[in-house]
Every structure is written in C-alpha cells, then in structure tokens.
C-alpha cells in the first residue's frame, strides 16, 4: 500500500502519466518532490487544487496523506 497521486486534465499530459504511487505518509513538500518539476510548478499556483481521500483541501500545503489515500491534483476546470 502507498499513496496514489492522480493527475487530472492537463496535468496528466505534463506528468505523462495518469497516476503514480508514492510511499506514505506524504506531505506538501513530499508531493512537490514526487511529481517532477513541471507539475510542481503548476501545483504551487493558487488555481490548482489538491484533494485527499475525496476531500478538496482548503489549504493544500497542509496535505497529510497516509498509505492507501488517493491524492488528486486538480487544475482549473472547464465543464458544460
């Protein structure tokens, strides 16, 4: 078991992957280090959100994912 990091929308292209597995626990610094420089740059922009275990974090820098959690990286949305 590990933390699964999911890349959504255009972040998937940047990451060249749908998801990666990272050993838990995973905090904000660990996430930035794990996703590579391009996604890391995006993640630090305010308009990119992070969800952990199905909840969007109000403060993504407070990330604290345990093994088994799914962490989703959510770029700006465009529906309809």
């Amino acid at each position, binding site marked *: 078991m590990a933390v699964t990091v999911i890349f959504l929308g255009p972040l998937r292209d940047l990451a060249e992957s749908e998801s990666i597995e990272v050993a838990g626990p995973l905090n904000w610094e660990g996430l930035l280090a794990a996703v590579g420089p391009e996604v890391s740059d995006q993640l630090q922009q305010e308009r990119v959100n992070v*969800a952990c275990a199905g909840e969007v974090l109000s403060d993504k820098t407070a990330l604290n994912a345990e093994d088994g959690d799914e962490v*989703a990286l959510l770029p700006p949305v465009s529906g309809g």
Partner: protein
Amino acid sequence: MRDVRLLTEAFDPSALVGAFTTANPGLGGVCTFVGEVRSDTDVEALELSHYAPLTLPSMGELADNAFARFDLMGLLMIHRVGQMHPGDPIVCVSAAARHRRAAIDAVDFCMDHLKAAAWFWKREKRDGEWNWIEPRSDDYADLARWA
C-alpha cells in the same frame, strides 16, 4: 423531483426533459438549457474527463444550493463525460417552478457553476491534435454574479 446524473453515453435531452416535466405536476414553468458540441468549427471531437470521487458529489451539492436559493419544484442536471462529436449533447439542466423567474435563474445559476466551478476538464481535437480548454474569462465573470 431531483435528478442529477453523470452519463458516459449519448443521451436524448428531450426525452429526459419530457419525463422530468411530467414528474412535476402543478408546475407553472420549466426552463431548460441544453449545451451541445458546436459543429460550425473545425473541432472533430471533444472529451470531458472528471474525477469520480468529486464530480458527481459536487453536482449534488450544486443542486442542493439551487434548491436552497430558488423556489423550485424540481431540478434535472445531466452532464456527459467521455468523448463526444459535433452535435452531441454535453449538458442538460432543467428547472421546474411555480414562477418563471425561479426556473430561469436556477438554470442560469447551475450552468454558470457547471461551466466554471464543477470538476470537469475539457479538451478538443482539431486537425488530429488534442488541446485542453480552460474556462473563458466570460465564464468566470458569469460565475461571479452569484457570489
């Protein structure tokens, strides 16, 4: 009557709206918006992706907010995901109410939120190449009207 769905296959808005209207006896008016993949451009295909743990729950919250904000009898909110082609319906929101203002405003409210504040990501294919679409600045301005 509340019907919120994420669909992976093509759908027929008029059949859904017909059933929805019938399911809300006593209504004064029904307002419906149907969005389709435009076919007047050189877009060959459109793909909408979502994030299952968030997308449908957030549509449910949006429906709750619309019921709290407007005097509605019923709300239908259907959104496609997956790959679509020009002319295919993408989204259908229909609101039934005693008075027209609530029905029209609820559709307006839900569409603005689905466009710029729901967990969907859209990309389109032109000349064989996929490109991601961000909301237009108009979409953010429309959303800000409800803040």
